[in-house]
Structures are given as structure tokens and as C-alpha cells.
């Protein structure tokens, strides 16, 4: 109720009808002014009873009035407010990997009135380790808390350092609660291993925790985060005898995204093979499970060098779907490894929780081998993205022309100066009075000022800001690419920006910027299910740089095969994008492949040896790939290529020693980040790239 209503209630209390309740103490019986005493009932007992009754009624009325007044007046009265209690739960069972995002579950208990407010978590980023000053980032979620209710909110937070506490606040018009959390009690220096198992036959798996610094945590499916970013501090998810039926769609999607982004999943078979036939689990399996049977398993050679066999091992019968069977026994694939994007799935068909395998003393060591990949993962070369690169971009004519109207300014100036010169000249020629000349000048100035202002401020397609994304799609085979998107947000006027990340994004890291770090903190609005918005205020002519990582489907299949002094290349573009300006670079040579349209499929052979004349005159290293002489019609592409994707004297030398490099620009690439505002111009560049070491003859 409004303030006026409260005043009305007070007025009601003060009204004569209510205050004339009469005397309400025994003393008042003798009160000469008592209206009851003056009434026709002169009996003292009756008078006493009536007085008591009236007094009681009066007290009740006044109390009701007082309560109503307090209720409606908005005074600090405990009944009029929500009382919020914040109970945070950090990471996975109180553990997270330092330097990686982790889930933060916050339980809000409301013991008062309903409250609609904002839950905010402030973490600190930057700092000495990131080469800049610390700056705050707020994670925000709008929450409605019913009266006398509890609500759990899941957020994914990513502090760069934990020496400053994490601050949780809930604020609403009726309540405010805050809590600080010292994260130093919860971190682990190494990635975590999550075990999902309904079975209690866990003794062999417990041995996996002996891996250096790694911590295995047993979680239930319900505890798996619905945001793939929350799993970034997890190296392995181990599944044994676990139904995945209860996982939500968001949780499954998060697990899938985490896997393709580099996660590793180990699925261990069990007697309950029906669990492995469920759609929610079979989507991860590289095999189709059909049943179980006992087999003889020969893990490896014994100490004496002779093969060592275990008979009667319970194993799942399965048919290989994809991946590679590393071990087979009795005609069934026992150990299968499959890759998915940058991730890896290992399937072990044996039931390790049941005899005779559970009693095998070499089991722990065998399981350890599942955690370490046969071929160590090689990180993709990082592109350069910093102030120096952006300085080149922003100064290039193609970028400037999007927001700096120097062409129209030149013509406007020319017209105006001509007009200013012409009016006095005409005035003198036509013998006009000074007043008329001045009026003419005034009209010219007024018209020029207004028209120019409208043109340069409102018209002319000058955007409020430019969002540029430059992405390298690094082919990882099997139709997946690792997308490293470098983002630049440039603002022409002071205003807030809402970056909406497309689903599947994994990391968004602000590139450290020393000067601007002290300004207003950025806000990450997390809407659940991994959907996030990055809210950032910018001043006029200010900019911010970000790096983003995502693993995505891009079914462009490339196969390279070194055949002596020739290189055979097969390409099959099943993606829905055309590639243009495609090149193949091998040491000392380059081949212009032109455009590779969607659906195109061809194979060609290229010589790996230099022509004799060229070899004699070449001054470059014979095993190095040179990008120096490549140029593109678009200046922005040129800068991105030479300064960001393949920087001169760059940090990565994968193409510097015997590698074939294929690249092509993606036509009309999908934006990785959007700003839903027509006043923000968006520019997207994407380069598909595949680097194949030639000395290993590896297929891509």
C-alpha cells in the first residue's frame, strides 16, 4: 500500500470515534466525564462491566490500527521484510580446480515475505598472474523467492585468483543479504576426476585417486552441472554401472559440449548392460552394447614376459560403431577409443567391479593406463590478439570507413567553405547591403550546422559500436573444429553493451587492458542452461578485447598423405559454408586452390620438392612454410592473417618445421557472439585452418 494509505490508517486511529473509547482503567470508574456513567444505567456493577468491555474493545481497535499502520507504512518492521539466508556450495563436493571455471550452487532460504531480487556473485579477475590490475566481474541472476521457501541457483564462476573473497549478495526492495566466501579452502591444483556410479563395487576405482595431485570425486547424476563451462576443471568423467536416465537435457548437452571441447570420458562396462543401451548413455558410447558374456582377457605380458590371461572375465558384448578397438578378446572389442572433437571417449567392456577382475592385483595399474592418452594432446596454436593487433585493425581504411565519415566530411567542408566564400563575393558583385550578406551567411551557417549534425550524428550509418570477431577454425578431424574467436568491441559513444554468446561457447577471457580495468565492473548475466550475456559498459571511443573458445561441428574433411616427394590431398566440404581464397602451403611452395564451395569434393597431388631453379635462388629455409608474400584484397583480412593468425616470428612453430598448411576464408561465417541492436555493426571473419606435420605422414 502506498504512503497515503498508511496516513489514512493513522488518521483513522486519531478519529474521535476511536479515541472516544472511554475510560479503560479502574480509576476511570470514578471519572466524572465517563459517558457510561452518565448513561441511564446508573448501576455501578453494570457500569464497571461496561467500562471494562469498552476499554478492551478500545485496546483491540488501537492495536489493530497500530499493526495496520506499521504494515502499510514500510517502516523497518520484521514482518514486513523478507529474511534471506545464503548458503553456498562450491565446486564438486567442495572442490574445484584453481584457474578454471567451477559450479557454484547457492541455496537461498527465505523466512519472510516473498522477495524478487538479484543474486550477484562478485569474483576477481586479472591480477599479477594475468599481467594486469585486478578487476571485478559480477555474475548475476534474477531470482524470485516465494515466502517461506528455498531456492537453489546454479552459477558458473571463474575467478582468476582467490586471495580476495568471493562475495555473494542478494538484494531486493524488501531484503538484502550478503555472504563472503574464502575460496582458498576449496581449491585443488590439478583437474578433478568425476565418478558416476550407482554400484558400491568401487574398490578398484578408488586407486585412481593416487594419480599425482588429481582428486576423484564421486557425484550423483543430479550434481552434474547444466553448464558445460562448469566442467572445465574436470579432466575425466568416469561412468560405471550408472544410469544416465535422470540427467536433464541441459546436463546431457553440457556433458556433450564439455566432451567435444576436450573432456575425457571413461565408460566402464558392467553386468547391467541394459543401462548401456539407454539413449542417454549410448549417445556417448563408441559401441552398441548387446549383452554380456564371460571371456578370457589377456591384458599384457606378465613379469616373465609371457602373456598373462584371466579367464571368465565378465564383459559386455558390443559392436564397434566408431573409434578404434585397441584391444579385442574372443571377438568382442574390449577396449575402444574414440575421439569427439577435441575430446576422447574410452570404453572398457570389462566389468571391473565383479570377480574375477575385481580380485586382480594389476587392475589399478591397468586402469591408470586408461587415464593417460596413447598420443598426448597437442594444443592448437594460439592466434595473437592484443592492443597492437587491434591498433592495426582500427587504423586500417576498411575498418575506419565503417564509422568515420571522412568522405562525407570532406564534401561537407568543401560545400560550406565554398558557400562562405561565395556569399560575400556575390554580395559585393550584386552590391548587397551588409545586413543581407549577414542574413545569407546566417542561413548558410544554420542550415549547414543542422544538416551536418543530423548527417553525422543520426544518419550516415555511423554505428554506436563495432563488434568484430575473427575466428580461426582449427580442424581436429572427424568433422569438428576448435574455434578460437578473437573479439573486439569498439564503441563510438558511452553506452552499455550486451554480448550474447551462442550456445556451446566454453571460454570468454577478457584480454588484459591496463588502463581500463579500474572502470565499472562487467556483469555476466547467467540465465541457466549455459546461456549467458556479458554486460559491459563502454565509454565513447573505447574498446575491449576478448578471446573465446568453442568446439563446433564443421564437416569439412581433409586427408593428407605424403607419398615420397608428393603430397596427396583429398577434400570433402560437407559444411554449409563456401571457402574462398584457399591455399595449400608446403615448405618452400604454395598452391592457390581458389574457392572450395559447399559440397565440393576432390583430390589432388602436389609436388613436395622445389623446382631446381627455385631451389637455387630460394633464401628461405627449405623446411619452413612462408606466409610473408601472401596478401588479400581486403586490408582487414590481411592484417588478421599476418598479425593474428600467422604472426611474423610468431609464438608457434608448428608450421616452421616440415608441415603442410591448408587454409581458406569462410564466406559469411556464423557469428559466435551477437549484440541484438541494429546500432551495433557486426563484422565477422573466419579462417579454416589445418596444419599437418609432414615428417610423420599423419592423416588429418
Amino acid at each position, binding site marked *: 500500500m502506498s504512503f497515503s494509505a498508511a496516513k489514512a490508517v493513522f488518521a483513522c486511529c486519531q478519529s474521535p470515534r476511536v479515541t472516544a473509547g472511554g475510560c479503560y482503567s479502574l480509576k476511570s470508574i470514578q471519572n466524572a466525564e465517563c459517558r457510561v456513567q452518565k448513561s441511564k444505567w446508573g448501576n455501578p456493577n453494570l457500569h464497571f462491566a461496561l467500562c471494562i468491555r469498552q476499554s478492551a474493545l478500545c485496546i483491540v481497535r488501537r492495536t489493530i490500527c497500530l499493526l495496520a499502520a506499521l504494515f502499510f507504512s514500510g517502516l523497518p518492521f520484521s514482518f514486513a521484510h523478507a529474511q534471506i539466508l545464503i548458503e553456498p556450495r562450491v565446486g564438486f563436493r567442495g572442490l574445484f580446480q584453481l584457474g578454471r571455471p567451477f559450479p557454484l550452487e547457492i541455496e537461498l532460504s527465505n523466512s519472510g515475505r516473498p522477495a524478487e531480487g538479484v543474486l550477484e556473485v562478485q569474483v576477481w579477475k586479472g591480477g599479477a598472474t594475468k599481467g594486469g590490475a585486478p578487476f571485478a566481474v559480477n555474475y548475476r541472476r534474477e531470482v524470485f523467492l516465494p515466502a517461506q521457501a528455498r531456492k537453489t541457483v546454479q552459477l558458473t564462476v571463474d575467478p582468476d585468483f582467490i586471495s580476495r573473497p568471493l562475495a555473494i549478495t542478494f538484494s531486493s526492495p524488501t531484503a538484502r543479504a550478503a555472504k563472503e566466501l574464502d575460496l582458498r579452502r576449496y581449491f585443488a591444483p590439478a583437474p578433478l576426476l568425476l565418478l558416476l556410479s550407482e554400484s558400491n563395487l568401487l574398490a578398484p576405482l578408488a586407486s585412481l585417486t593416487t594419480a599425482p595431485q588429481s582428486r576423484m570425486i564421486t557425484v550423483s547424476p543430479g550434481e552434474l552441472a547444466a553448464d558445460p563451462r562448469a566442467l572445465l576443471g574436470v579432466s575425466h568423467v568416469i561412468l560405471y554401472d550408472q544410469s544416465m536416465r535422470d540427467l536433464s537435457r541441459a546436463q546431457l548437452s553440457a556433458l556433450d559440449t564439455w566432451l567435444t571441447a576436450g573432456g575425457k570420458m571413461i565408460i566402464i562396462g558392467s553386468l547391467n548392460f541394459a543401462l548401456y543401451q539407454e539413449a542417454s548413455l549410448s549417445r556417448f558410447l563408441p559401441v552398441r552394447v548387446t549383452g554380456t558374456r564371460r571371456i578370457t582377457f589377456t591384458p599384457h605380458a606378465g613379469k616373465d614376459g609371457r602373456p598373462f590371461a584371466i579367464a571368465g572375465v565378465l564383459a559386455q558384448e558390443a559392436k564397434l560403431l566408431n573409434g578404434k578397438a585397441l584391444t579385442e578378446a574372443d571377438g568382442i572389442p574390449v577396449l575402444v577409443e574414440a575421439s569427439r572433437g577435441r575430446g576422447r571417449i574410452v570404453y572398457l567392456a570389462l566389468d571391473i567391479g565383479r570377480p574375477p577382475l575385481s580380485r586382480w592385483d594389476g587392475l589399478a595399474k591397468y586402469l591408470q593406463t586408461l587415464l593417460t592418452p596413447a598420443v598426448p594432446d597437442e594444443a592448437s596454436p594460439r592466434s595473437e590478439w592484443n592492443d597492437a593487433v587491434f*591498433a592495426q585493425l582500427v587504423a586500417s581504411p576498411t575498418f575506419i570507413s565503417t564509422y568515420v565519415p571522412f568522405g562525407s*566530411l570532406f564534401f561537407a567542408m568543401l560545400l560550406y567553405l565554398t558557400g562562405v566564400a561565395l556569399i560575400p563575393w556575390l554580395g559585393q558583385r550584386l552590391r548587397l547591403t551588409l545586413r543581407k*550578406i549577414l542574413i545569407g*551567411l546566417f542561413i548558410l*551557417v544554420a542550415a*549547414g550546422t543542422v544538416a551536418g*549534425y543530423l548527417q*553525422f550524428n543520426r544518419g550516415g550509418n555511423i554505428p554506436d559500436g563495432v563488434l568484430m570477431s575473427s575466428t580461426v577454425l582449427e580442424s581436429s578431424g572427424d568433422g569438428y573444429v576448435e574455434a578460437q574467436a578473437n573479439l573486439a568491441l569498439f564503441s563510438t559513444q558511452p553506452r552499455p553493451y550486451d554480448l550474447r554468446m551462442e550456445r556451446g561457447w566454453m571460454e570468454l577471457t577478457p584480454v588484459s587492458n591496463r*588502463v581500463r580495468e579500474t572502470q565499472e565492473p562487467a556483469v555476466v548475466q547467467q540465465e541457466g542452461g549455459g546461456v549467458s550475456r556479458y554486460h559491459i559498459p563502454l565509454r*565513447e571511443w573505447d574498446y575491449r578485447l576478448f578471446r573465446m573458445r568453442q568446439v563446433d561441428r564443421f564437416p569439412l574433411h581433409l586427408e593428407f598423405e605424403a607419398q615420397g616427394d608428393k603430397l596427396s590431398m583429398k577434400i570433402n566440404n560437407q559444411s554449409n559454408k563456401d571457402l574462398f581464397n584457399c591455399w595449400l602451403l608446403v615448405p618452400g611452395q604454395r598452391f592457390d586452390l581458389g574457392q572450395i564451395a559447399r559440397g565440393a569434393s576432390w583430390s589432388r597431388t602436389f609436388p613436395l620438392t622445389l623446382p631446381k631453379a627455385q631451389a637455387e635462388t630460394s633464401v628461405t629455409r627449405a623446411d619452413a612454410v612462408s606466409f610473408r608474400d601472401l596478401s588479400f584484397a581486403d586490408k582487414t583480412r590481411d592484417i588478421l592473417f599476418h598479425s593474428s593468425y600467422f604472426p611474423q616470428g610468431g609464438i608457434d612453430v608448428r608450421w616452421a618445421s616440415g608441415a603442410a598448411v591448408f587454409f581458406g576464408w569462410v564466406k559469411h561465417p556464423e557469428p559466435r557472439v551477437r549484440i541484438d541492436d541494429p546500432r551495433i555493426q557486426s563484422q565477422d571473419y573466419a579462417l579454416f585452418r589445418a596444419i599437418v606435420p609432414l615428417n610423420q605422414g599423419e592423416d588429418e
Partner: protein
Amino acid sequence: MSHNPVWRESIAVFFVEGHGYQVYFYLLAILAPVEFLSLYVPSLDAQKWSGSASLFKVCAITLLLLLVYFSLRVANQEFAPWRFKPLKHWLREQSYSAALVSQAQLAFLSAHVALSLLLCAPLLVWAGAISRTPLERVGVTFLLLLFYGLSYGVWGLAALVLWERRMENRQVFIRCLFVGLVILSALFYLPVNPVAFVLAYLGRQELAPLTLFGLAWPAPWIHFTFHLLFGGAGFALHRWGLRREAL
């Protein structure tokens, strides 16, 4: 004012005979290339875009310097000085009052400053639109420019009446005044300097207050008090010089 012969003489020399056109030509010929080149030839250091970002600042400061400099020179009758009759003619031979002459000279100075701002207005407003400077800041900048033009220009009038027959002295004086107060004053106390003040205003920065007698005086107060006193002193000197000449 239209019947004031001193005013009519200034108008005739400047606009009818056309001796004053060069002033406005210089103004536009300097301001327009500065504006265009600072937009067209961008330079970016590692942190800040300094081309179109600072376009309005660059133009406003350029115009401030030009306006103050030419106001001083116009008031000092440095353009076609042979065409102006000496003060002795007006005050003694024609027996006009010092107040009438002062009024005419001040009015002409104001007209010059206003016309300069009017002619440069489109260029400045366009710069403001391109650099996304809020309209109210553009408006306040115009008022500041008008204020500086008058408060400094009045010293050109003072120099004219104090050393009318010593033209070289006047020229040296107003140039020293310009360099000393518009440029070098920043070295002593920044809020007094008009360039620093305009830059701080446009950059939404607060200048350091002046602590005097244990009290912290806000920088804008110091700035405007100084300029009002400075302009007032110039005006008083001008009036005093005219009265002395009339005797």
C-alpha cells in the same frame, strides 16, 4: 549603435572594404584542415584512439587558440591599421565621449567574436556529432569560447588605448599575453589555463582544487573568478586609457 561613428568605421574597414575577411579566412583555413586531417590521419597508441575520438576536443582547442589570438589582434587594430582614425580624432577633434568610443570598440570586439564563432559553428558542431560529444557539452563549449574571446580580447583594446602610437609595443605585448596566459599558465596552475579547463570539461575530468588560506577552492570557481577579474581589469584599463586620452 548603428549611428556610432567608431562602430561604423570598424564595420566599414572590416566588412565593406573587406580588410577583415583575411581574419575569417585564416580561422577557417586553419580549422578546417585540422579537423579533416585529425579525422583522416588517425593515430592510435596502445591505449587510446586519438583521431576521431578527440575530434571535438582538437577542434575546440584549435578554435580557442585561434579565437583568442585573432580577438587580441582585431581589438588591437592590427589588420589595416592605417584605415582606422586615431583616438585623438574621435576624442578630441570630434569630441566624442570616452564611453561612446569604448562602447563602439567593445561592440565591435563582441561582433568579431560572435561572427568568428558563427562561421566556425558548423565545423565544430560536425566534429561534435562525429565524436559523439553530447549536445549540451557542445553548447557549453561555445559559451566558453565566447567568454574567453571577450575576456582576452578586451586586453587588445586596453593595449590599443595605452600604447596607440607604439604599434610594435602593442604587438609584442599582446603576443606575450597570449603565450603567457593561454599557453604558459598551464605550467603554474592548470585550472587557470583555458585550454586545460576546456579539455577537462570535455573529458569529464575534475581539476585539482586550489588550497588557499586553509580552504579548498574548487577549480571552476578559481578559473571563472580569475577570468572575470582578468577581463574586468582589461576593461578598466581600457576605460582608464580612453579617459586619459580624452583629457
